[in-house]
């Protein structure tokens, strides 16, 4: 993984000091706006909102850039698909394929939406440690009746933080396993299916073994998946209230922009 990709940058900006819940709600509002945005004005307005938030955080351009850049292949793919496969009046023809004006417009809109989404997400992750994001999500989910699904918001939070630790760990053991099998003469090119089998089966065993150990360690530390407290004390302060109100108001204005334009 690249060092900067959606990683936390310690600091003491306004965005850093806000309650993670405010920031998560903010991101949700922003995503609604982003997915509804059609016109150039809306896109510009979202850009302005982002710039304001960016200035309020001590995030660097580099951090935002390095959260978007690794996604370039997907972004280019999305753009190309829309460019070539949207019906409309042709403006150019490449390799016998038509590029339409509508395609260009739609491609740019959809791609820009994704870029915006990544940019807003990088604001959240660069100003909030992942542990606090987890706690924030847990608190926001707590009032919802997750019990019908057979889990609690605490289980969800524990799963989130464990997977953040476990994914790199499993990746490490997968590499060890691959080396072990390769050194015993596994030929991935000539017998791809056999290779897949001799990697996945032991890998599943390793994963279960780890899960079993982990469950034992959690249980011996009294984890019951019921109400638990956190080392992080979340405080929804006056500043949060103010920020969420302003942000909500801004969002509402942008949300109703298409309607306002009609007048």
């Amino acid at each position: 993984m690249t060092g900067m990709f959606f990683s936390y940058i310690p600091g003491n900006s306004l965005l850093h000091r806000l309650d993670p819940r405010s920031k998560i709600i903010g991101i949700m509002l922003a995503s609604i706006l982003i997915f509804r945005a059609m016109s150039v004005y809306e896109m510009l307005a979202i850009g302005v909102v982002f710039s304001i938030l960016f200035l309020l955080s001590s995030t660097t351009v580099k951090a935002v850039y390095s959260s978007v850049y690794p996604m370039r292949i997907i972004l280019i793919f999305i753009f190309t698909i829309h460019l070539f496969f949207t019906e409309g009046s042709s403006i150019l023809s490449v390799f016998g394929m038509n590029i339409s004006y509508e395609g260009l417009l739609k491609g740019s809109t959809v791609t820009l939406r994704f870029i915006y989404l990544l940019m807003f997400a990088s604001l959240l992750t660069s100003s909030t440690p992942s542990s606090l994001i987890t706690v924030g999500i847990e608190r926001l989910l707590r009032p919802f009746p997750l019990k019908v699904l057979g889990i609690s918001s605490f289980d969800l939070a524990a799963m989130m933080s464990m997977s953040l630790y476990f994914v790199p760990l499993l990746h490490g053991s997968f590499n060890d396993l691959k080396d072990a099998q390769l050194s015993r003469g596994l030929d991935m090119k000539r017998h791809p299916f056999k290779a897949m089998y001799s990697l996945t089966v032991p890998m599943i065993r390793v994963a279960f073994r780890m899960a079993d150990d982990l469950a034992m360690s959690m249980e011996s530390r009294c984890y019951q998946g019921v109400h638990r407290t956190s080392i992080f004390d979340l405080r929804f302060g006056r500043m949060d209230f103010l920020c969420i109100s302003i942000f909500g108001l801004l969002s509402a204005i942008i949300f109703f922009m298409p309607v306002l334009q009609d007048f």
Partner: protein
Amino acid sequence: MIQINDLSHRFPNGNLALDSVNLNIKKGEFVVIAGRNGSGKSTLVRHMNALLLPSSGNVIVNGMGSSDQKDHWDIRQAVSMVFQNPDSQFVGMTVEEDVAFGLENLGMASDNIRESVDRCLQFAGLSEYSKTSPIHLSGGQKQKVAIASVLAMYPECIIFDEVTSMLDHASCNDVMDLINSVHKAGKTVIHVTHRLEEATTADRLIVMDAGRIVLDDTPSNIFLSGKVSDFGLELPPIIALAKKFKDSGILQGYLALSKDELLEDLCQLILKT
């Protein structure tokens, strides 16, 4: 504080891992349990904090029987456990969160959690790593985090199940130093290992074989008896040497259990002659 009467354990696949074990562990004792692989050590200690339940017989911790489901959380708080694999016992994304995990489960308030976490990290000498992800630590440091994590819950007794077996020599010594200081801080310590040099500072050594307790005495008495090799264990070279000196009558008195003790005995012998 832990009393085990006639405990047997049969796994669902029919393996009889424990065969009528009787054991009584007193408060503040430092007990080492040794034995070859598969002799039932892990199975035995998992009964002591209700991670496994008896097939027959009973386990009583501080007057609470492990057969009563509602006492399990109290038992687990009184008797904590640190496991063999340093990698697969972390729940938190950072060291401090992992240490806080048990306290969060007990429903303690944030400020108090913070205070205990800082104290335990300091005790384990890990304060500078509090915001680090456990994945970036060495094996020995990971085990120290795991020890700090159980210390935070303020247990009366801590079980270490082969915590040193995946570590290199230097980390092993580091972790053993921490275990010794945990014992000095007044905790009952049960240390499972197959390296007998780790038993030298213990009050009591228990050797298991095929699901039974076969030896139970002070480490030096067991070393002197010369029986450990019957059960797949090996005396550390220094102790084997000290025993040779003693058996052949060159040295008298207590059996030397470390390099320094043996050297001192030998120096005194030379001075006397």
